[in-house]
């Protein structure tokens, strides 16, 4: 599957407090409403401007902090097709896969705001059409690939009834 869209560049250490702020805690059971505020405390205009298929591109330690699954869930609801970063905080990484949002580890230093990107999930490549460069992203563990391919953990368990680790 090829994903195409524009890059939205963020810096290092984008915490889950910036993605889904605590002051909007009361919207956690209204994810479509919470999604209108996604990444608001990092970029107040992002939620209004992001287009379907675009990418969120971070630096180091993307998603650090809280375990709130609402963070990757609302990034997905905002129609972002994948998050790319040099490294992820572990709970966010696992949660992203669980909600069916690809989280891809690659050297994002070379990607700038508004670059046009093409991601090939099978080949493991990120092509920056604006810069004419190809990056590779680190492969996910098998169990995570299966969960992502099924569309997320709920869909995976619905399909298999249990975890399958072979």
């Amino acid at each position, binding site marked *: 599957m090829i994903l195409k869209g524009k890059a939205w560049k963020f810096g290092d250490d984008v915490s889950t407090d910036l993605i889904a702020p605590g002051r909007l*805690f009361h919207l956690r*059971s209204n994810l479509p409403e919470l999604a209108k505020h996604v990444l608001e405390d990092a970029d107040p205009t992002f939620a209004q401007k992001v287009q379907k298929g675009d990418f969120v591109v971070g630096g180091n330690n993307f998603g650090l*902090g809280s*375990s709130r699954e609402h963070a990757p869930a609302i990034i997905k609801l905002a129609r972002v097709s994948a998050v790319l970063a040099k490294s992820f905080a572990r709970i966010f990484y696992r949660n992203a896969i669980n909600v069916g949002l690809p989280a891809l580890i690659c050297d994002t230093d070379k990607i700038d705001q508004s670059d046009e990107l093409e991601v090939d999930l099978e080949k493991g490549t990120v092509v920056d059409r604006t810069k004419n460069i190809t990056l590779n992203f680190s492969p996910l563990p098998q*169990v995570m690939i299966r969960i992502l391919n099924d569309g997320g*953990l709920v869909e995976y368990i619905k399909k298999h009834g249990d975890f399958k680790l072979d």
Partner: protein
Amino acid sequence: MGKTLVEKIIGEHVAKAGGNKKEVKAGEIVLVPVDVCLTQDGTGPLAIRQLQKIGLEKAKNPDKTVLFIDHAAPSPRKELSNDHITIRKFAEKTGACLSDVAEGVCHQIIAESYLNPGDVLIGADSHTCTGGALCAFSTGMGSTDVAMGIALGKTWLRVPETFKIEVNGDFQVGVYPKDLILHLIGLIGADGATYKSLEFTGDTIKRMSMSGRLTLSNMAVEAGAKAGLIFSDNITKEFLKEHGRVKAYREIKADEDAEYERVIKIDASKLLPTISFPHTVDNTKTIDEVKEKIKIDQVFLGTCTNGRLEDLEVAAKMIKGRKKNPKVRMIVVPASKRVFLEALDKGIIKTFIEFGVAILAPGCGPCVGVHEGILGDGENCISTMNRNFKGRMGNTEAFIYLASPATATAAAITGEISDPREFLAKKKVKGKIKVKKERRKRK
């Protein structure tokens, strides 16, 4: 080959699950039966809805599935009150345990009442790693992972490599476990231990109270770690005895020849009161590096990190007979009902109230920026909690400093970030005659 604590605990669980596999090594991905699951009121409703989606509204181990209402307790608005109703209904339907308003913070209660050495605990809260102080593999996950853990009684895990954190020496007066963990996070960075298990060992840890150990394990995630484990010993046994579970005790230690990815040695006697500056936990400075005057508007003492009796006692000792700076608000939140009652019995709550403290119901209090104690624009708060990200306490225009209960309390007296040792030293500190005068007044 020898095993680290995490290899031992996960290995035992994999062996117990049946099949050929009897032990595990760092790097392997395994399926693990789970002993205890927790959710809190921010993450529980989503977990419940995920289970409803697949018609799996059940708890495999209802006695060890604990649904907490602590982050917004009591509720400040109707949307959250409705979330609380969802949680209560699920508890009733499945027979899972409900820990409602006024009981306290999830990690504190899990330690007091549910978790045992050798257990595997998964929680829909990042500070679930607190349980590592009881030598249980304890880790934070998202709502859906924990939902499946609740319904199926299992989860998949990658066995982490371990960093050994060896601490020897005695803390100076005015230096505490909180200073140690802030120092460590400042040293290795907020992603210095991502995916790793931290194992705390050494004489300092051997002598440390369970309250201090819980502080260390609680903040493992702030260095990116998956777990923060401490061996079990007589101190663990005493803690379990005090909480009616001495039979659950067993001694668990890492093997002498266990393999560690990294060993960090710390001399506790060299540590100083340490503070995390806004807006990251690893942005640490020792008190003597703080050259500027930093005015404080709010002091918050509490949370799963430092809301226990030992923490409240330090603060009470410092403030007794002294006056609060009139420009500072101080909020104290006992981490559990039990802590609150103990503090009441010892007269500590009276000392706080006389000082001018606002005591809140056991729970997370201002920590998550949801209710009670939200900061105004440009305000500075010094807090004993574990996170100071921008906007954490409900306002992106405010600033949060993290510190030990002693350092936080010193600011309540002076109105600015101050050295707690000046209020705790037994001998007269050179040039600080003012402090000695105050002590005489108390008699």
